[in-house]
């Protein structure tokens, strides 16, 4: 007759197999059963912590790791798991404390050094020590891709870009199917904050796509890819806006032939930027970008406005002097609206890539303000039209303003109504 300990041992072995098969929720379920029959089993608690961390349940992972520590305070693995959970929860000081304890208990384990390096890199407190720990991890396990990735993360935190890239490349030479290394390398290729290098952006997009290819569950890579594509569109739109502004200020007031060709010459900047980006993309990424333009309404609107701006700038070359100001102005306004939309899209995408909830483009107070401003503008227009006896144009614009304010009020009302909570379906059949 089997004892609870025997049952727990079998469940633990099965859970280990499930964990290796990356079926983390099922492994966690089985481990909970094992723990129910043998609550003092430290290996079960430790594996449960690892499974919970792999499913993104950082708090659950921490609790399980703490329970394992209470059962076996002299083992390194539970300490490392606690350090990892605390790092993911942003509690860096506590994470460092557990990582140091793990290292004290297991000084020859490369994972202990790597854990400490990660925790220190996240806190940004002692990067030279983090670097030393990462180097020791590599010295102990030169064929472990994870050790090189840790070194890359530490170098990236210290802003040693080329060193970080070299580490991620080294990890990929050991394990070409390592999704994290592909993703981190792509992140490096995105370059600085200004994203003026379209080739770097295209390489980043390719890297994130590769990361998705080798691990289709890598949702962070998917979100980063979407961010890169939005950054590209926002940057191209920014160049169009600058062109439109310059042409509105300089080109339209001059009758010199060279000045009239200025719009065309300046358009070479966004065109060149877009060409360099798109030419480096693979066919599937180009197709993906096209689908993004076609299916995302806001992105589609922004790109249409940019296309309108470009058309107006080209028309300004051919149009007579009198029409040029209007065309340049329309181009500038279109490009400005497009730029605002794309900026908000980049921010949304960036928040999503960091695992944060999307923020609305405008807060509710700002929406009230815009709605009242539109009503005021409509009233003023109607008043001006009535007193001056001008045509119906003013009335049409006023009606448009009122319709716009009504749409905003409707939106505010919808935002106010709370969404009923969903009952989740069955996760797995």
């Amino acid at each position: 007759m089997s004892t609870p300990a025997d049952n727990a041992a079998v469940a633990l072995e099965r859970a280990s197999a499930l964990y290796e098969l990356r079926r983390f929720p099922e492994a966690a379920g089985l481990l909970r059963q094992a723990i129910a029959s043998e609550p003092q089993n430290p290996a079960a608690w430790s594996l449960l912590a690892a499974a919970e961390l792999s499913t993104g349940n950082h708090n659950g992972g921490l609790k399980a790791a703490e329970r394992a520590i209470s059962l076996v305070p002299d083992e390194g693995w539970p300490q490392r798991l606690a350090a990892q959970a605390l790092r993911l929860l942003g509690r860096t000081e506590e994470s460092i404390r557990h990582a140091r304890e793990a290292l004290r208990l297991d000084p020859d384990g490369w994972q202990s050094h790597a854990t400490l390096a990660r925790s220190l890199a996240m806190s940004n407190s002692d990067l030279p020590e983090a670097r030393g720990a990462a180097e020791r991890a590599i010295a102990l396990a030169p064929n472990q891709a994870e050790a090189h990735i840790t070194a890359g993360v530490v170098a990236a935190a210290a802003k040693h870009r080329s060193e970080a890239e070299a580490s991620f490349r080294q990890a990929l030479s050991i394990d070409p199917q390592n999704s994290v290394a592909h993703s981190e390398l792509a992140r490096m290729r995105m370059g600085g904050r200004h994203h003026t290098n379209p080739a770097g952006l295209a390489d980043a997009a390719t890297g994130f796509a590769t990361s998705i290819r080798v691990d289709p569950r890598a949702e962070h890579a998917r979100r980063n890819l979407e961010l890169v594509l939005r950054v590209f569109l926002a940057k191209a739109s920014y160049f169009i806006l600058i062109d439109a502004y310059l042409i509105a200020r300089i080109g339209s007031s001059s009758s010199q032939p060279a000045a009239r060709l200025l719009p065309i010459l300046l358009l070479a900047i966004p065109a060149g930027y877009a060409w360099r980006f798109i030419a480096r993309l693979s066919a599937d990424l180009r197709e993906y970008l096209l689908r993004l333009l076609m299916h995302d309404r806001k992105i589609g609107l922004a790109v249409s406005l940019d296309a309108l701006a470009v058309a107006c700038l080209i028309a300004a070359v051919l149009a007579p002097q009198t029409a040029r100001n209007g065309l340049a102005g329309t181009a500038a306004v279109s490009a400005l609206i497009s730029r605002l939309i794309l900026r908000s899209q980049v921010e949304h995408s960036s928040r999503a890539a960091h695992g944060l909830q999307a923020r609305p483009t405008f807060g509710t107070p700002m929406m009230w303000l815009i709605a009242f401003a539109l009503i005021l503008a409509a009233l003023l227009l109607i008043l001006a039209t009535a007193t001056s006896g001008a045509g119906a144009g003013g009335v049409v614009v006023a009606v448009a303003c009122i319709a716009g304010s009504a749409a905003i009020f409707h939106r505010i009302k919808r935002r106010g109504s709370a969404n009923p909570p969903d009952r989740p379906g069955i996760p797995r059949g």
Partner: protein
Amino acid sequence: MPPSEVVADGEAETLRRLESELADVAPPMYVDVEADAESNYEIESVGLRLADVAGMAEVKARLEAAVLAPMRNPELTRLYGRSVRGGLLLYGPPGCGKTFISRALAGEMDAQFLAVSLADVLDMYVGQSERNVRGIFEAARSRAPCVVFLDEVDALGQKRSHLRNSAARGSVNQLLSEMDGLTSNEGVFVIGATNHPWDVDVALRRPGRFDRMLLVLPPDAPAREAVLRHHLRGRPIANVNLAKLAKMTSGYSGADLAYVCEGAADRALMDSARSGTPRLIDMSDLEAAVRDVKPSIGPWLETARNVAEFANEGGAYDELLSYLRSRRSA
């Protein structure tokens, strides 16, 4: 050391006789080591037919073209340069009837059905994986014609690059060897089912192994109606419009539909308990349950989208890609 090696030749016959006398009491233990493989797996005769699968006309047509027609006309199949060997990999979101379809396919072939579940696979990882995989195929060959159904085949045939456990690697290698039919696989047809075909070792998808892939999507309207009817059978219901419910539950898996019926029954039960008067499950209960239960295939679709858009090598997932596009444009 295997038990047969410790038994002297003269004693073997006596033991074999004793074993046959005790066959109804205990399974063979002493003489024939290989015989116990069969007893570990339940092989059953299936009365189901594809006609018993409601809706899913496209899946049935593809099964007919890819599997049944070549099997019924082997000479014609060879004439056109097609192979009658190889297995079938059914993939799709969880809870959408892959197992049911496999059983119906076995019934259609008039074959026995040997199902290997995830629990069996985990037992292999804990025990002797290679021997157990061999045992499955030996049991199937002994009862040919037989369909071997490997449920959640990604667990048994996981990409070897993901595996560190030697037992798990051994099971993949043994499965490859068995499917190659180093020993004869005449009369044995292998069906794999998985929610994650992208985790299956690519070597398993080569010709002669799982070289035919078939996407099993969430049930269509007629299938949903049949599933709802099945789960409401035996429950007290009144004025239920199944066609309307089927229309409301587009994108729901069979498991989600079962959950809808459970939810509706819970509602009616709670209401009856509150009022003290039993009442029938009506349309309002079912509609409320449909609103509460969201389709569970969302996370699967997210991963599937990543695969179809970025890892569709050789067009393996064209069918999935076209489904995802049709969902987006719908």
